[in-house]
């Protein structure tokens, strides 16, 4: 019987498999950052162990860094201490650090791919749940806790039971104004925030295949938002073209060998999945979330569900979510005034996201009631945007381009949405308080976020696209 893509990669990395034990899985690259690593380094010190393979460990500072004036010392004392601690630990344990000021610094899930570190067939882990992003290359990538960060530092291996396999197919042609973010928000709205728990999810189908690498990363990034252990997409020419020539991509003979191997990485026609789901691209509208988990999403023209439409035992949690969001049963979000727009995060902060937003906002200006933050995913994305003149377009539109980091996705630094305020955000989580205590998040695509910034309210991007078509 044929094998799934996931099983091919898994089997190629099993160091030891024993009945009744989880497998010992070899990890090609371990990404670390300032927030989930200090306790792991402490653990190594207590054990008197070195980092087993420091050359296969890559560090950056992203979660807890300011996004303005990065050349100055970090003002907030605890944040500065945490970032300094990463520098100290990397030095002591011999790990390459792309810290603040380094040309490769950025959000860990943006820099791995853009540096050619993330490749098809590899295994990647990081103490961050959005590590699933790297699966877009046809790789296994797990988010892990700090005890496991310590484990991988100490052994370059992860103890892990093989998850079940799910295939999610999307076929058909997307409507204008609908993109990768809408696809994944739609899938999660259909299967719930827990619908993928226990599974490695392979995305397939011609719609997925038509996406750029950056779109595929957006899809895989949010696998965790349906509870999946990881998400992956079989590599193809799009993947190979993306990796080719990048800083740490294989070169010469190594490259040819690598490509030959990557071409074997797909699920065989007769591979068995534990679950297969299919969706039609034509059914997907521009999406927006209304609630406090990413499964609570609707098409932007639809109405918020009625409490009575849920089972009795779920109604309490549902009411709590609507109350937190300041919404009511059957409310339509379209036209609702907003206060902030955040364009950034490991979901949507890559150069294509910024280009798409710049193209749309060129010659337009944000509404007076809205504050907009554009936070690039990495130093390289920021510099590319400046080279292309996107920063000027953004400035003229009232969309200042900041410096790279996780920023208002999780509100660890000072980029917080104030209490009670509404933010249309291109990030991945709308949990209570995620973007700041009592902040209210509507997750959406970069285009929907940009359109909402221009009008000052939740907006259907398609109304603009129609107008622009008429003009041109």
């Amino acid at each position, binding site marked *: 019987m044929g094998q799934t893509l996931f099983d091919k990669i898994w089997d190629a990395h099993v*160091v*030891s498999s024993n009945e*009744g*034990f*989880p497998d*010992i899985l*070899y990890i090609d690259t371990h990404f670390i950052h300032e*927030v*989930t690593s*200090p*306790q792991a380094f*402490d653990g190594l010190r207590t*054990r008197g*162990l070195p980092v*087993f393979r420091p050359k296969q460990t890559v560090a950056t500072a992203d*979660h*807890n860094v300011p996004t303005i004036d990065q050349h100055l010392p970090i003002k907030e004392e*605890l*944040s500065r*201490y*945490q970032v300094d601690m990463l520098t100290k630990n990397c030095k002591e344990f011999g790990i390459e650090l792309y810290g603040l000021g380094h040309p490769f610094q950025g959000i860990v899930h943006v820099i791995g791919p853009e540096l050619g570190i993330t490749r098809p067939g590899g295994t990647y882990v990081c*103490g*961050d*749940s959005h590590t699933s992003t790297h699966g877009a290359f046809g790789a296994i990538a797990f*988010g*892990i*806790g*700090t*005890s496991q960060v*310590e*484990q991988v530092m*100490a*052994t*370059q*291996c992860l103890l892990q*039971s093989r998850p079940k396999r799910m295939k999610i197919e999307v076929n058909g042609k997307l409507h204008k104004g609908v993109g990768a973010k809408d696809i994944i928000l739609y899938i999660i709205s259909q299967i719930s*925030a*827990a619908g993928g*728990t*226990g599974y490695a999810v392979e995305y397939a189908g011609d719609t997925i295949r038509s996406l750029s690498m950056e779109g595929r990363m957006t899809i895989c990034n949010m696998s*965790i938002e349906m*509870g999946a*252990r990881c998400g992956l997409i079989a590599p193809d020419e799009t993947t190979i073209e993306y990796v080719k020539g990048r800083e740490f991509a294989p070169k010469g003979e190594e490259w040819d060998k690598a490509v030959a191997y990557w071409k074997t990485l797909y699920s065989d026609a007769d591979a068995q999945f534990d679950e297969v789901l299919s969706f039609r691209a034509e059914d997907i509208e521009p999406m927006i979330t209304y609630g*406090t*988990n990413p*499964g609570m999403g609707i098409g932007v023209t639809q109405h918020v569900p009625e409490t009575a439409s849920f089972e009795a*035992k*779920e109604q*309490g*949690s549902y009411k709590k979510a609507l109350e937190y969001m300041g919404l009511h049963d059957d409310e339509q979000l379209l036209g609702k005034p907003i206060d902030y727009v955040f364009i950034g995060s490991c979901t949507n902060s890559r150069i294509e996201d910024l280009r798409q937003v710049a193209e749309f906002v060129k010659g337009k200006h944000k509404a007076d009631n809205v504050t907009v933050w554009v936070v690039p995913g990495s130093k390289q994305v920021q510099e590319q945007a400046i080279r292309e003149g996107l920063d000027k377009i953004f400035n003229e539109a009232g969309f200042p381009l900041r410096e790279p980091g996780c920023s208002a996705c*999780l*509100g*660890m630094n000072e980029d917080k949405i104030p*209490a009670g305020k509404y933010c249309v955000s291109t990030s991945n*989580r709308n*949990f*209570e*308080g*995620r973007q700041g*205590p009592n902040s209210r998040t509507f997750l959406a695509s970069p285009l929907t976020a940009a359109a909402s910034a221009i009008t000052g309210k939740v907006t259907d991007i398609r109304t603009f696209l129609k107008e622009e078509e008429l003009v041109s």
Partner: protein
Amino acid sequence: MATKIFKHIQTSVVPLPIENIDTDQIIPARFLKATTRDGFGNNLFRDWRFDENDNPKEEFVLNNPNFSGKILVAGKNFGCGSSREHAAWAIADYGFDAVVSSFFADIFKGNALNNGLLPVQVSEDFLKKIFDAVYADHTAAVEIDLVDQFIKIVATGEQETFEVNPYKKACMTNGYDDIDYILSKKELIEEFEGK
């Protein structure tokens, strides 16, 4: 390195009948700046537990003197969201030894097991029975036995078995540690690298 041992507990429980409790609720990101594992219990469920002036919110269960115990009982999909192990540290540091729910997010479950905090997955029906028991009598005791893998409502004797990975069970009941286990296979790792 030995870890905390868990075999059996019997205590009253703290009910939190909310679904999809994510790790940002368990420990908000702004409290992740600490570089040690200590003290996260003070900020467990911070924004549900305290108002913006740091005054306790009376309506939240951790501020209700009627409810206490070493078992937290919560709605389905507990621990979804971020991989932050700080969530497991916060729950354990506050004084809980086990969390009971009808469904757990994967990463949280793994993090809990790595910290001697036992996640016990029960059926929706049994979860409701526990909530009913504790709301009828806030001192209602629940017994959890990891060795024989059952959970019991003491007053009524109703019980259910639960699943746990046999390896993780051995770790928790004996205090074994993952890193010691993997390093015992170091030769295999080096052999793999040589391939």
